[in-house]
């Protein structure tokens, strides 16, 4: 399946993927409104790690073949849909953080309403290409099928 992959060779650490992710998932049509018009800034489902020697990379849900978060979820809020996308149903999430405990990559975060947030590849808000990928200025984040291995 197509997943989000990152290449730290090209990540500039601009953190715009976080901004775009938060905006895309904010439900607002306008970024300024999304960030400046509400009490709480929208939250990203992707995190950029900044290291020494200008190493940067973004981390978001890997949509693992073996999704420990889904297997550990105590409520059934986390599921894998027919396309292999790990999704969360926030009406069923109770914010217990078992998924945080289970995820090897640290890709879930707690939302403002205490339920968990995670990358769902923008299936709900854009379709096609995830916003972080679309807006990455340097192709450091790509949306590709690498199930056969990395080229």
């Amino acid at each position, binding site marked *: *399946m197509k*997943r989000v*992959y*990152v*290449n*730290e060779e090209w990540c500039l650490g601009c953190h715009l993927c976080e901004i775009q992710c938060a905006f895309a998932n904010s439900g607002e049509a306008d970024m300024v409104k999304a960030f400046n018009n509400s009490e709480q800034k929208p939250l990203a489902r992707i995190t950029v*790690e*900044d*290291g020494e020697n200008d*190493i940067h*990379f973004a*981390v978001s849900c*890997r949509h*693992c*073949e*073996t999704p*420990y*978060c889904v*297997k*550990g979820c*105590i*409520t*059934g809020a986390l599921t894998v849909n027919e396309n292999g996308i790990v999704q969360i149903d926030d*009406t*069923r999430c*109770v*914010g*217990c*953080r*078992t*998924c*945080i*405990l*289970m*995820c*090897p*990559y*640290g890709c*879930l*975060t*707690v939302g403002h309403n205490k339920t968990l947030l995670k990358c769902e590849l923008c299936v709900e808000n854009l379709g096609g290409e995830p916003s972080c990928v679309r807006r990455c200025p340097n192709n450091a984040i790509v949306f590709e099928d*690498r*199930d056969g*291995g*990395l080229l």
Partner: protein
Amino acid sequence: MKKFKYIIIGNSAGAIGGVQGIRKVDQASEILIITSEPWETYSRPLISYWLQGKVKREKMHYRDPSFYKENNCRIRYNTSVEKINPQDQTMALADGEIIGYEKLLVATGSIPFVPPIKGLPKNLKESKSIFTFTTLADAIGVKKGLTNDARVVILGAGLIGLKAAEAMVNQCQSVTVVDLADRVLPSVLEDKSSDIVKKHLETQAVDFMLETSITEIRDKEVLLSNGKSLPYEILILAVGTKPQCTLIQEARGDIGRGIVTDHHQETTLKNIYAAGDCTQSLDISSETQKNLAILPNAFLQGEVAGMNMAGEEAVYDQAFPLNSVGFMGLYILSAGTYDGVAYETQTPEQYKKIFIKDNVLKGYIIIGDCMRGGIYTDLIREQTDLSTIDLKMLITSPQIMAFNQSSRKEKLAQSH
């Protein structure tokens, strides 16, 4: 006699894992699920949330109600299995019916351990004021008696006891937790972290009476080992659980700290598998056999059992204790064994303790901000050699940056 290719006894995480495991391999054959409860599968940890009013009954489904139909499962509610006969691969139900199986999964879970206390009613299930707290039926019972002026006494400061305390503390007059141990969550935390949790709960109006036991249960009152007494309208007995191994034991399967299985989750009885709270697992972090009664473990075991039942070899060999639990806004992540050199950090947002032994992460405790804690969990799960990892960075905060470039690439640029 009816005969089924697959029968699963139980209807919780281990059983559901079993169904999903079977379905990965065999999409056709019918599965019979036998449950002693009257309900579709529900999440047991959610009973405290339901009692608290945070989760509605219909959101307690562990899987959508359509799950059984979609997975071609026949389910028999309110049905107990009396006996398994592994020789002819049959079982006898409580109503006397005999049914046959080709592959059987025992996912009977655990049952509350009820200590022998003076004055304990003979038939606890019919009591309107004394409860265990592991099933929805328990929670429903508690709720009936829960009034604003009710005084609640909970015996046991473990996960079940404290979740019950959290659920009720804002709906009753008082909650007092009594435990013989000197700290809360004695099986999950060590001293300092335990103290943080206790203090937090105390600020939320939960009272504790530690190093104390109940010596006698009377109507509306318990007597304590320190000579005092506590009045109660609701008494919860939450001193622990024990694996439900009776069926296997009687069929002469091996029992240790639960049902003994191999890496395929097969018991010592041919074609009988077991998963979940009823089993014994090898804790890889301490290399000892344990009864790991935790939900993720149950599901993973069930899934492996199911796949093997359907003919595909799968292995589960990564069991270790792990818990994520929150009490009144304070969250705790813990995993593994608290053995080795401990690295402790504390900030206003977080208390953290990490245990490293033989260059492997053995266990950790995080209280407070637990973001990305799963990165630690994975190090335990994979027993990762820490020599190529930036330990200082890792201890400060869990991050992929702490790994070397090739493992970063493997994690972020390859499919998993």
